[in-house]
């Protein structure tokens, strides 16, 4: 990254992995600013970041609801048939006195992804109409801090492995919930890639000042 001419008016930014100070230039669409000494991504330039994030997050909400309503997998063997949902998968370990594991599965596969989606919608929908919602700061912080603990992708890998493990035991039938879960994963990845927290904080700051 090089210093632009009108550097004094640009916001200061410190690399969060090596603390090097920069003046952050306005970035072109699809461009990255990297720290020149440690390589960390400092900021991303993105057109329509807010609209894209909202579209993907709304899609994610719909898919989240489907994934939580319908069975993920079904099992057929010797005339018996059974299935499980995301919620029953999280809950089952309580019966075996492993409630700590149950809570962990529930938080990382259901509650944190939901809080992330709802937090983004609650804060970004009004911002798009140039309005600052009440409790913007705590809600947006919840939306940001639940992202690293939302593990839909890892859960998906767990489903794949279980299908392989069960192949010699019974016939595994994918449920509607599984397809929704795949869609949810794709929508979440797209939403996370288009979210630009820095520009959201700046926008919220500007709206607060104008109020």
């Amino acid at each position, binding site marked *: 990254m090089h210093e632009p001419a009108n550097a004094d008016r640009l916001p200061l930014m410190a690399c969060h992995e090596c603390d090097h100070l920069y003046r952050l230039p306005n970035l072109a669409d699809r461009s990255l600013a990297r720290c020149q000494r440690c390589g960390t991504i400092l900021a991303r330039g993105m057109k329509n970041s807010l609209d894209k994030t909202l579209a993907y997050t709304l899609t994610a909400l719909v898919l989240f609801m489907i994934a939580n309503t319908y069975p993920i997998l079904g099992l057929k063997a*010797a005339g018996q048939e059974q299935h499980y949902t995301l919620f029953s998968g999280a809950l089952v370990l309580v019966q075996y006195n492993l409630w700590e594991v149950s809570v962990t*599965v529930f938080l990382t596969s259901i509650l944190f992804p939901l809080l992330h989606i709802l937090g983004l919608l609650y804060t970004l929908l009004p911002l798009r109409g140039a309005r600052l919602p009440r409790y913007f700061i705590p809600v947006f912080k919840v939306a940001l801090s639940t992202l690293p603990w939302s593990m839909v992708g*890892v859960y998906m890998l767990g489903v794949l492995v279980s299908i392989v493990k069960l192949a010699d035991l019974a016939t595994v039938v994918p449920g509607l919930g599984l397809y929704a879960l795949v869609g949810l994963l794709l929508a979440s990845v797209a939403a996370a890639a288009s979210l630009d927290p820095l520009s959201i*904080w700046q926008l919220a700051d500007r709206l607060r000042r104008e109020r």
Partner: protein
Amino acid sequence: MSRPTLTARQAGLASCHTCHLVVKKPQGHDKAHCPRCHSPIHSRKVDSLSRTWALVVAAVILYIPANLYPVMTVSKLGSGDPSTIISGVMHLIHSGMWPLALIVFVASIVVPVGKLAILIYLLLSVHYRSFRKPKDRTVLFRLLELFGHWSMVDVFLVSILVALVDLGFLATIEPGVGVLYFGAVVITTLFASRAFDPRLIWDVIDDDLG
């Protein structure tokens, strides 16, 4: 760039952990809050090294029962077959599903062991004020953040199998206490890598340059 390296700390500034706003560094025991997002401002993560060490030691200890105790027992027609994390990976390799076996091998064995090894190396390198390849060490830290949570796959797998498989006399799957220890290892190492402050790697070098 020709001018000498200038960090936020050297300039008397600090950046907010949450929204990355650069503000004046709090002096002494002042409790400063970010004007933009109200988060507490610290120039460096508080007690980073001692917190990271504590969590790493806890994870290493928990890793032993996590691999000794079975994570689940598969019962077919009455006879039980307990499996640990390692035997689960072996089973997948023998089933011939190579790509999946490789991913699970990485997620359930390479990632937890590698994470602890990297964290110990980073902690020692900061402790002994190493000058070696700070950029590469920062990249190692970034890898921790990127791949750390993939070990959760074993915990999810057990919960899925137990919830799904209850075929009466034909087959049942019961969880073992190993999954509790393994889950604890994953969560503890996730907190450990969040407790480590990669800027400490660079502070040694910046202090020396003045």
